[in-house]
């Protein structure tokens, strides 16, 4: 655990499925520090790009390289929260314990860490409830608690609030800020521009599977360099 698993280096990464290119020629360096927002329209390839980074998909071209070669260690030190969280059919607490078990945390320490993580997302009182009967917002907070307990160096979030109402979304954003404050690198896909501004430090703008722009958040919204990004911002703003 001495050095960071970052930077993450993508070199000319492509991904295709059934002859259709979804990601083409993406080269990126993801550094520790600033929160990175992956922005783009539906179908731009945001989810696939994050899955390639997280290792859930293998690129069909190019390489994804972390600053850590041991796969098990690499897996333990990053986490991902999906648009639709998947909860195991057991209690809230047991869901977090399961993740800690897989991460190799000694049994004696799991419960304390799990409860601390549930407190962090404001779910301490729900620890014994069955996880599958929670509301969507609570399930997503549990997904974040599950990630929090693992103390990941990098947290990937794939449109974590897309299915939630505004107040649940705000609670999720609060937890994401806490991750950032605790030093976890945030990489989040969204097409919600307001959320991108609230949480992001830099933007990677994706269009048709290619990175067309990468800029600091304020510069991106003030003066988008590419025509695609300009059109996207203009098109999305009324609904923020």
């Amino acid at each position, binding site marked *: 655990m001495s050095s960071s698993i970052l930077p993450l280096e993508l070199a000319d990464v492509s991904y295709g499925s059934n002859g259709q290119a979804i990601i083409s020629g993406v080269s990126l360096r993801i550094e520790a520090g600033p929160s990175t927002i992956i922005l783009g329209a539906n179908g731009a390839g945001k989810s696939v790009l994050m*899955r390639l980074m997280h290792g859930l998909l293998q690129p069909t071209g190019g390489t994804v390289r972390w600053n850590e070669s041991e796969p098990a260690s690499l897996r333990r030190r990053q*986490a991902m929260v999906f648009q639709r*969280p*998947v909860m195991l*059919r*057991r209690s809230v607490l047991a869901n977090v314990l399961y993740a800690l078990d897989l991460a190799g945390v000694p049994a004696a320490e799991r419960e304390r860490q799990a409860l601390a993580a549930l407190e962090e997302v404001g779910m301490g009182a729900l620890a014994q409830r*069955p996880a599958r*009967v929670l509301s969507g917002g609570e399930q997503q907070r549990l997904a974040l608690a599950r990630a929090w307990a693992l103390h990941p160096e990098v947290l990937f979030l794939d449109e974590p609030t897309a299915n939630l109402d505004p107040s649940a979304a705000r609670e999720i954003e609060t937890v994401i800020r806490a991750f950032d404050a605790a030093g976890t690198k945030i990489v989040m896909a969204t097409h919600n521009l307001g959320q991108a501004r609230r949480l992001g430090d830099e933007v990677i703008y994706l269009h048709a599977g290619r990175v067309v722009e990468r800029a600091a958040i304020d510069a991106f919204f003030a003066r988008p360099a590419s025509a695609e990004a300009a059109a996207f911002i203009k098109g999305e703003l009324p609904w923020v």
Partner: protein
Amino acid sequence: MGAIVEGLRRVFQLDAELWHIVVLSLEVSLSAVLLATLVGLPLGALLAVKRFPGRRGVIVVLNALMGLPPVVVGLLVYLLLSRAGPLGELGLLFTPGAMIVAQTVLVLPIIAALARQALEDAWREYEEQLRSLGAEGLRAALTLVWDARFSLITAVLAGLGRASAEVGAVMIVGGNIDGVTRVMTTAIALETSKGDLPLALGLGAVLIAIVLVLNAAAQLVKEAAQRRFG
């Protein structure tokens, strides 16, 4: 209808003898289902989770094995366990043990194949999350079995139905020996061939009632658990 009533009256006059037949039937079938479940659920789960060359072929064969004729299984187990056979030294032939072995072979493909189907659907939902958390292979398979435990009850019940209904395999490897290996189905077959149709019908009604009670109990457990755990 009158014959069934008459048969039931006769069945309950058999008391001790009938009791023994019923208990042995349950012992044999439940043991076989238990063994087949312990092997079949993880096997089905691994097939749902793992991608390997020849996987589709294995699934086709497994599905086909669901239709294994009980008499053929009985014959194969008979050859295996007969004195000259490879497992003859175990001395299992014409004992309840042999009947458990035969029924396990019959039931295993049913439980594994139905579990595979149910768990493959669940895996589509769980795969990314479990892989992200670092669960792969057998670990992921067992997590899946535990999480889908309520829907897997159906697969186990299908296995139990097969085990309690079949007569061909237990007849061949058990021999239908009175007081030793006689179970409900072999008793029904015997009474029918002796021409005592009322008694055969009565035994049949008892068998159906037992299966019904077991299924109702399983259904209640399943529904209560699903209300509780979502």
